[in-house]
């Protein structure tokens, strides 16, 4: 990603240039969608949340420091939207659409199937966690935020974030062990 280009697009979009914002959407949509997909496990819901995250971001540009990278901010918005959606709808675990093959280098068909199964197991294990545990795993492991940043994103005390994260990891490790045994 070209940071200078990204920054100039951000500045234009912040001034209300919707074409520039459209280009930013194309640059970051995959990353934002993946946050939502890990949190919700459903492609349609994830696309809806990603879309909503961009609209929210556009409307909140006045609160955003345009000198900072946009992707982490978008991911945080998406994470919080997912938490809100889970609270509102309690979606069922859904990986019915199947998972796509991993990226290059392409493994053999057998390895591909094995990888796909493993990915499904990891995603299923994450989705089986309670939403607040899912959120801390997402923010720490996939968005690389530190404890303070997670606390700020989730508006939670630092101590609570730490205990949630450590507990979530323990539960996730156990669930993965169980799933591998099956």
């Amino acid at each position, binding site marked *: 990603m070209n940071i200078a280009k990204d920054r100039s697009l951000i500045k234009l979009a912040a001034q209300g240039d*919707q074409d520039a914002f459209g280009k930013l959407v*194309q640059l970051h949509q995959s990353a934002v969608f993946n946050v939502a997909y890990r949190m919700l496990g459903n492609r349609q819901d994830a696309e809806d949340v990603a879309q909503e995250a961009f609209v929210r971001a556009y409307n909140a540009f006045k609160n955003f420091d345009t000198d900072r990278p946009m992707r982490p901010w978008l991911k945080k918005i998406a994470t919080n939207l997912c938490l809100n959606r889970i609270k509102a709808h309690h979606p069922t675990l859904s990986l019915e659409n199947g998972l796509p093959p991993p990226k290059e280098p392409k493994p053999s068909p057998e390895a591909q199937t094995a990888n796909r199964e493993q990915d499904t197991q990891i995603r299923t294990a994450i989705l089986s966690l309670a939403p607040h545990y899912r959120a801390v795993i997402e923010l720490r492991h996939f968005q690389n935020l530190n404890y303070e940043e997670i606390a700020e994103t989730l508006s939670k005390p630092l101590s609570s974030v730490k205990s949630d994260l450590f507990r979530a990891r323990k539960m996730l490790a156990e669930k993965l062990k169980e799933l591998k045994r099956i």
Partner: protein
Amino acid sequence: MKHLTEPQLNEYLDQMLDVPTQQKVEAHLSDCEGCRAQIAQLEILFSTLDELPEVPLTRDLKVGVLAGLPKTVEIPTLWQQPAFLAQSLLTVILLTLTMPILNRQFDSLSSFFTFPVIELTSFAEIIAKLSPLFRWDFRFSFAFPEISFTTPTLPSIPISLDTNIVLLLIISAGMMWGIGNFSLLRSKPEVRK
């Protein structure tokens, strides 16, 4: 031997410990097999999560996102609005055409009234009157450069206007004013700056 606590293990792997504590944890790990096993388990989890691939999007979200954004409508400036331009143009024409008539009317009106002549005291006179009240003496002189003003004269228009034409022009101007203001003050959609 006292084992490492769960927070210590996690914070060690997250590299969130201060240097002295980190050194203590490393010293303990070199001696404690149980804690090393726990660290290894967590490391497996970390790498498992790291290896989870991204899922590709099957459709472009741009169209949906842009459709959800508030609509931006460019409101033209006053000078870009045809109604305003027409109004302004008509006003200038009207003023030019009716000026001789208005001038005549004003002359006939002014003959009815005589305004009292007001003698304004100049600043220099006030200063001169006030100066004895103070101990110091003002010697102030200022001369304005001589500027001569000439009243602009309108070009004479070789047409004669009767009252009906003036009335027609005033009605036209009124209509243009109404249409122009309707166009300017009509409800506007939401505009985002």
